[in-house]
């Protein structure tokens, strides 16, 4: 499918492009990447981004590049993610340092969750989070998700499953 572009108050959610890769490579040189596969060689980051984009071809949906409207800053990639080794489809987020602490991940995750519910017709959504990733857990809680079991991944180890409010619960929320 042609990848859509979504907009929120502050953000443009658009297809990931080759121009985003240097930002992802810089991110993956740092310890900040420890919860999303770890520090990674730039050549592997290039393939990892190809995998993110190719997910759209295989599933018909995938993650979006997050760009701040006012500054044009690349903030990371966020959205539906369901590789073959995941127990069920998730809403994922990987946020660059420049976008930290301003609610950008929350705004992007919310928009892509709504898109998954309204456009893809998802009836439920999870996020898989490393139990030591306190920042991501805080965001999951802020999104109304609840801890709902664990999943033993063959490479990433034990991950916690956080289950988001259902489409009905989101609709009925104040």
């Amino acid at each position, binding site marked *: 499918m042609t990848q859509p572009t979504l907009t929120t108050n502050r953000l443009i959610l658009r297809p990931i492009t080759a121009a985003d890769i240097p930002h992802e490579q810089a991110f993956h040189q740092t310890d900040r990447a420890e919860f999303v596969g770890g520090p990674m060689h730039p050549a592997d980051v290039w393939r990892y981004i190809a*995998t993110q984009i190719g997910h759209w*071809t295989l599933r018909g949906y995938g993650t979006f590049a997050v760009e701040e409207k006012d500054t044009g800053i690349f903030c990371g990639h966020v959205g539906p993610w369901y590789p073959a*080794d995941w127990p069920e489809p998730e809403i994922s987020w990987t946020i660059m340092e420049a976008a930290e602490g301003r609610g950008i991940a929350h705004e992007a995750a919310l928009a892509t969750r709504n898109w998954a519910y309204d456009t893809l017709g998802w009836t439920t959504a999870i996020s898989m989070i490393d139990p030591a990733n306190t920042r991501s857990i805080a965001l999951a809680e802020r999104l109304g998700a609840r801890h709902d079991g664990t999943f033993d991944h*063959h490479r990433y180890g034990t991950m916690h499953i956080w289950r988001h409010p259902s489409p009905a619960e989101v609709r009925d929320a104040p």
Partner: protein
Amino acid sequence: MMTQLETERLTLRRPNHLDVDAVTAFYATDRSQYVGGPVDASDAWRKLATFAGHWDLRGYGLFAIVPKGETAAIGLAGPWHPINWPETEIGWHIWSTDHEGKGFAREAALATRTHAHQVLGWTNIVSYIAPGNDRSIALAKRLGAVQDHDAPVPTPHDASTCLVFRHPMGAA
């Protein structure tokens, strides 16, 4: 972006979700040993996603090889240029022994090499082949490629794990 090619016996198209089962079966066997396998089903899925995403990043990529009259692909062939490749490559994989020995890889490699040369404008084409992959080495030679002992190899390989065959230009 040209995403489909036709040869006498083959349709060459972008890899997609229809190829998951065949790719998974291939990467479960030792046949994949020269192209990063064997790997389990989940990693095979991610490899296919990577092949698909290469198209978006580069505007070209490996084509899925589909014999005319059939719907399922039998392998991949075509332009491949991940960021750590020193030069632009034409690669090929035939997924099952059932489809070997029929010249499909040759037909697909020739068509995609011509496409790379004439449409993508490539002036430099190599194939990176693991030592011991005798079928691929034989095909490279049949395609007129000549081993280049001095060419750089993709990191983290060296000459003991990767041979470079350089394709003729102009004859394409």
